[in-house]
């Protein structure tokens, strides 16, 4: 792991932590958002930690499993980390769906939080 750039290390471990939390107990995701965070979920916008956690906690499935196909991480000019994740998910007994998600991570007083998050399901390609 010594040769991996710092932004890849941070991005990768964030992604691992995020999906582990999401799949086991997503009410705990609150710790990674702040009041200035934005979420766009399937085209709908939510602003601030409370609104975001409420949206995520109220998603209509009992169980969820994410599988990451690929992830890319880049440092931004303002010392944030931009991460793009492509994967598949399965909610309850529904069919497997593809998804993509983008995170922007910013360092605030020794805690890395997610400032922006955009999520979309991949449409079927006929």
């Amino acid at each position, binding site marked *: 792991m010594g040769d991996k750039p710092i932004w890849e290390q941070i991005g990768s471990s964030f992604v691992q932590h995020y999906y582990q939390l999401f799949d086991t107990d997503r009410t705990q995701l609150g710790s990674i958002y702040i009041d*200035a965070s934005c979420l766009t979920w399937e085209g709908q916008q939510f602003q601030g930690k409370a609104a975001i956690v409420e949206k995520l906690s109220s998603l209509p499935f009992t169980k969820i499993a994410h599988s990451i196909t690929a992830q890319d991480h880049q440092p931004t000019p303002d010392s944030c980390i*931009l991460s*793009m994740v*492509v994967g598949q998910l399965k909610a309850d007994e529904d069919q497997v769906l593809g998804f*993509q998600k983008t995170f*922007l991570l910013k360092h605030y007083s020794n805690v890395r939080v997610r400032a922006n998050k*955009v999520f979309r399901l*991949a*449409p079927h*390609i006929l």
Partner: protein
Amino acid sequence: MADTPMWEQIGTGFVQHYYQQFDTDRVKLADLYTDTSCLTWEGVGFQGKNAIMGKLTSLPFQTIQHSITAQDHHPTPDSCVMTMVMGQLKADQDQVMGFQQVFLLKNIDNKWVCTNDMFRLSLHNFGA
């Protein structure tokens, strides 16, 4: 358009311009990048305008067409615009494929440029 937030106007305008350029004459995309821009193309990183343009102009197809299915735009804490695009593309006579792309746009000297760009085809390991 008056009710559309500024970041959506900027993001939407950029996306339209980017794919139009890409599909007609991608050499002209050089204007959108700087010497510190980063591109990750299918998992491979390229740093700076020259390296990025080297990659984009050497992609192995004659004709390319992008079709945007969805796009989302966010303002960032540092006054940038973060844009996520999902769509489909067709290169030459190949089959249509899904793709996703993320851009981070920054206003430098009164011009919106792309500082970060990540592209992936929507390919998964089905089954297993």
